[in-house]
């Protein structure tokens, strides 16, 4: 229990340990801790930034979707309108075509009627001439009374 050389030995041992700790233990550990702290701070900051980015992207997406929806509605409207006008045009065109066809048919019928009427007129006059010829075979010469017969045919 007396003071001996051990005291100096212990002091030296302590200084050696402290020096070793100072050189090889403390700095790398502190550096690792500091780096990790930095990394965590960076990570948190990045997370926050990502959050705001996400928020912004979501708003952007909402805006784009809204625009797209409006555009789509516009397109549908336009298409509807265009369809309506097409139908209308087709309808008027059809109307016109129908009338045109009707008109053509009418004129054709009229022409046919006229032609038939001419023919009938000719035939009637021929029949009339023939019958008159039969009646008047004896007394009437066809060439003598040609002017009378022509007048008659015109009156029919």
């Amino acid at each position, binding site marked *: *229990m*007396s*003071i*001996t*050389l*051990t*005291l*100096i*030995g*212990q*002091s030296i*041992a*302590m*200084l050696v*340990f*402290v020096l*070793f*700790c*100072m050189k*090889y*233990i*403390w700095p*790398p*550990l*502190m*550096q*690792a*801790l*500091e*780096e*990790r702290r*930095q*990394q965590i701070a960076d990570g948190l900051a990045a997370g926050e930034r990502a959050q705001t980015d996400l928020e912004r992207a979501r708003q952007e997406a909402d805006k784009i979707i809204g625009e797209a929806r409006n555009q789509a509605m516009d397109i549908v409207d336009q298409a509807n309108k265009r369809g309506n006008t097409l139908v209308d045009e087709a309808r008027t065109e059809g109307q016109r075509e129908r009338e045109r066809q009707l008109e053509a048919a009418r004129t054709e019928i009229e022409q046919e009627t006229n032609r038939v009427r001419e023919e009938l007129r000719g035939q009637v006059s021929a029949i009339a001439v023939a019958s008159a010829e039969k009646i008047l075979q004896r007394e009437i010469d066809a060439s003598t009374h040609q002017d009378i017969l022509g007048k008659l045919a015109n009156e029919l």
Partner: protein
Amino acid sequence: MATEGHGAQDASGYIVHHLQNLQVCRVDGAWVWNQCEGNFWTINVDSMFFSVFLGLVFIGLFWSVARKATSGVPGRFQAAIESIIEFIDKTVNETFHAKSNVIAPLALTVFVWVFFMNLMDLIPVDWLPLAASKLGIEYLKVVPTTDVNVTFGMSIAVFVLIIFYTIKAKGVTGFVAELTLHPIAPPKSGIGLIFAPVIIAFNFILESVALLAKPLSLSLRLFGNMFAGELIFILIALLGLWQLPLHFGWAVFHILIVTLQAFIFMMLTVVYLALAVEKH
């Protein structure tokens, strides 16, 4: 072990035996074991062995982590070591405000090393001495911090650092001024000048005592606590069967003392060094 012995002689012999260091010294050109009373040139082999061994354990543990320390995800062991490091770093930063590369590693070394040395107290008092006696080693004191040389050795190293830091921070004149011009400022002019030497002498005595009290209290506090704790362990070991619950109770309580004393030693070291660096 002393349970077989019954007489007061056996008991005191047992205690004395347990409190005896394994000493070696050189007398008349020959190495002598344990007959070194009053000889300064004596090495307490057991104290030195265990303290250096435990210091190496500390160095080994922390160095193995420090070499592979990554800033990535730490392993369990690295995390444990890092929590100690952060605890020390926080404590030191709260107390010691100047910049220094020495104080924090010093505090770490002191804390862990003293903690390990104190922790030897929890090994049942007879185990290692008995094993040693089987190997032919007569005396073995296992807990280095129950050796006053060990605690003084550390506190003297701290004392040297205190003086070194005082001079580094304030210069030699500042150091001398701190010893002589406080707490009573000597008069600088007038008739009072005659009393200046007396006041300076008074201050010097007062401040020297205050300065010397620092390492003294530092080492004696640790030594006293650990020595008393060890002594009680030895006394409990004398009690026969009753020692089992008592030993357990005291050991549990001692876990607190072991940690607390290591922390106090570290804390006071840092505080003294902070005082040395800071202006009053």
